[in-house]
């Protein structure tokens, strides 16, 4: 799926996928999520939101689940140095094409574009560090790509606590209230579920048991007359699921427009609460 311009000019998205997932017992990136995977979903959310590249940082030799061709893969040069090294590698990979990056972990199944937009919009120094739901969220935060060499030096020096970065750069600390002062975020993610992550199997089961997001669906043209009246809303985590819920299949003859904007036929495009999906004949036009 093409990246789109949205948040602020030249913003990249970086997903750290190289963690050991030791508590989960299996690679979190590949965990199934409503017909997709956690990593596919997270990269898809960023692709919907940023106007720059979307990058996944992986451990050397790490196998990843399938991703769109538009997602770039970056190998963390040294395993075991944690997020300091991972973020350094990610920021360095995009520094020539973006001034800012939203950085997150792979295991955020409820990440919402409104949260990403809000965090990036609050950047007025070098980093935005949310303190959300009672915890610091350095892996759901915004960083200037110019911090890449700073982090790289930290890694070389064995300074592997990410918190040390925030002491040496201009960091804006934002709490729930400041995040939710954005009415759009307040409307779609009032509990800041965007930062809920899944570390252990029980976390994953609990997250997986939550219903898929509720999205509005519309069908146009000849599609409007198929399969009876379309429901106004469906619960679907992906476009493919939304299509199936209204008796359609994305493909050569059917595309979807997300929130009246981006048009795609990628079934695994992630959906979030508040989305409007319009299904159109692919032969729209004269």
């Amino acid at each position: 799926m093409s990246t789109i311009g949205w948040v602020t000019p030249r913003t990249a998205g970086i997903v750290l996928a190289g963690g050991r997932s030791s508590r989960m017992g299996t690679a979190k990136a590949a965990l199934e999520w409503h017909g997709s995977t956690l990593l596919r979903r997270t990269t898809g959310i960023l692709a919907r939101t940023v106007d720059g590249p979307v990058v996944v940082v992986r451990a050397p030799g790490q196998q990843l689940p399938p991703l769109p061709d538009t997602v770039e893969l970056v190998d963390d040069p040294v395993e075991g140095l944690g997020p300091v090294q991972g973020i350094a590698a990610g920021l360095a990979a995009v520094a020539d094409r973006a001034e800012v990056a939203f950085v997150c972990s792979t295991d955020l199944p409820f990440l919402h574009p409104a949260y990403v937009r809000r965090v990036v919009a609050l950047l007025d120094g070098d980093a935005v560090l949310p303190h959300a739901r009672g915890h610091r969220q350095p892996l759901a935060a915004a960083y200037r790509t110019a911090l890449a060499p700073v982090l790289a030096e930290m890694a070389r020096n064995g300074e592997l606590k990410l918190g040390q970065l925030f002491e040496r750069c201009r960091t804006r600390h934002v709490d729930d209230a400041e995040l939710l002062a954005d009415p759009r975020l307040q409307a779609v993610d009032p509990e800041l579920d965007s930062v809920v992550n899944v570390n252990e199997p029980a976390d994953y089961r609990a997250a997986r048991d939550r219903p898929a997001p509720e999205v509005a669906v519309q069908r146009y043209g000849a599609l409007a007359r198929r399969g009876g009246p379309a429901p106004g809303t469906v619960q679907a985590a992906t476009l493919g699921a939304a299509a199936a819920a209204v008796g359609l299949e994305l493909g050569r003859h059917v595309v979807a427009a997300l929130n009246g904007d981006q048009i795609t036929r990628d079934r695994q495009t992630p959906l979030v609460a508040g989305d409007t999906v319009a299904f159109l004949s692919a032969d729209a036009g004269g």
Partner: protein
Amino acid sequence: MTAGGYSGRALVVDVSATSATAGALELPDRVLRAYLGGVGLGTWLLHRLAPARVDPLAPSAPLAFVFSPLVGTPLTTSAKFAVVAKSPLTGLLTDALASSQFAIAGKLTGNDAIVVRGRAAELSVLLVDGHGARLEPAPDLAGLPAAEAEEAVKERFGRGWRTAAIGPAGERGVRYATISHDGRHAGRGGLGAVLGAKNIKAVLVRAATKVGVADPEAVLAAAKDLRRRSFGPATAKYRELGTLANLLAFNAVSTLPTRNFTAATFAEAPKLAAEELHELRGVARNSCASCSIGCEHIYSRKGGGSQRMEYENVFALGPLCGVSDPDDVFAASARCDELGLDTISAGGTIAWAMECVERGLIDAPWLTFGDGAAVLRALEMIGAREPGLGELLALGSRAAAEVVGHGSIEFAPQVKGLELPGYEPRSLQSMALGLAVNARGADHNRSGAYEADLSGDLDRLSGGPAHVAAAIATEDRAAVMDSMILCKFLRGVFTEPFEEWAALLRPVTGWHVTADELRATARRIVLAKREFNAREGATAADDVLPRRMLDTPLQLGSGRTAELTAERLRSMVDHYYERRGLDADGRPAAADRADLLL
């Protein structure tokens, strides 16, 4: 020996005061193979027969009806003909397609094209059959809508004749007057005015011969297969709702031009939607001769009668003018048909005028956005070329803006003088390029680049190299389809279009046509059009969009901004020139000009 599907000649008819003399222009096989027919062959004929810089309305300016090798075969959607001339609206080449029996009868006169030059002393009809051409005075047809003129000549000359006629707007030289046959229109570019300037109310053709194909059995087999495929999902939209299905879909993705392109969504669009009208009004379907799709949807009108509605006439006379009442739009569409006016240019010119009124540039306080009665009143004035506003608007938005001045050209919705169709360039940036570079002006038929924008394969708001490639690809496909001729509503049926089209042409013509040859043909046709326009004075400065499109971004409902700057468009145009092998002025290189066989 002439290839199958062709007669190997064009009939060039010179009408003088009271008579017509016809001569045959031999069409060598290499020319037919290089240009196929339709739009392509018409372009070549215009190069050969139009004096350089000729006034489009001068007697010496030719107007060509051009057929194709597929016309008259059982291949579905093949009963189409092209009309090609120099446009009085743009001063450049224009070509338009219309459909049905005129194409078949015209080809079976024994000519691959019929070219008309000259001027009759009084309003006349021109008849062409196996005996040649003759001119018959027809002052009784003056002022008749084209449909009524068709009926009248059928009464007078008999049922064997098929007629292409102009309405009163063409007789009076409205710059965007149409030529019509059986309710279908060669609509764009003012071809009706060209015929009207020759004092020709109608051209009648009568079949006189047969035109064989190289391998009739293979053609029949191909036709059966194509017909079967034409019933599939690729044509469902056209069968089920027609092109009006575009209206709500475009509105949903901020692509529906509204109020002279000041917005891309129309709050009242649902009132005009095909989905709505199909439920509320009686609908009948119709199709051209030799067509299995049946895209025409004819709606019942309140108070009686019926009207065919397509997306373009609804957008142009509806949202573009701010009008939401379907009965107003029906009435305006019907009046355009009666007068013989291009609905897109009429709607675009009227919308421009509405904005001029808002800005105090035109003194016509009754002409306001949203007023359907005002649209009708304006159409009457245009059709009559009523002194003052009618005369002004009959020129089209570009020429009218040049008269009005005060910067009104910046929001005249036209490219090269041809008004924009219902595709918002800022939110469809492949299409933006297609509209800017197209030879006949702002055109959604010779460029189908909106397909790429609406496919999901690229970001429609970020015009760049991928968008250029997409625009070129659709331009090439249109060039071949419009020349071989097959209706572009069939395009979704083809998964490997150039291969499949070559496979259709081989048994018709007997040529060993390949996909690569057709790709070269496509490029040749596009370049030949550009070369003609260059000859007539077009430059790179004409490959542009109105300033409004470049200076004023649109805010989408999603929060994103649809912005197309002059720099981005120029970059895409430059990239288009490079990929097409054009020079900095958009003209074909010398080596390519040699290939044009001019």
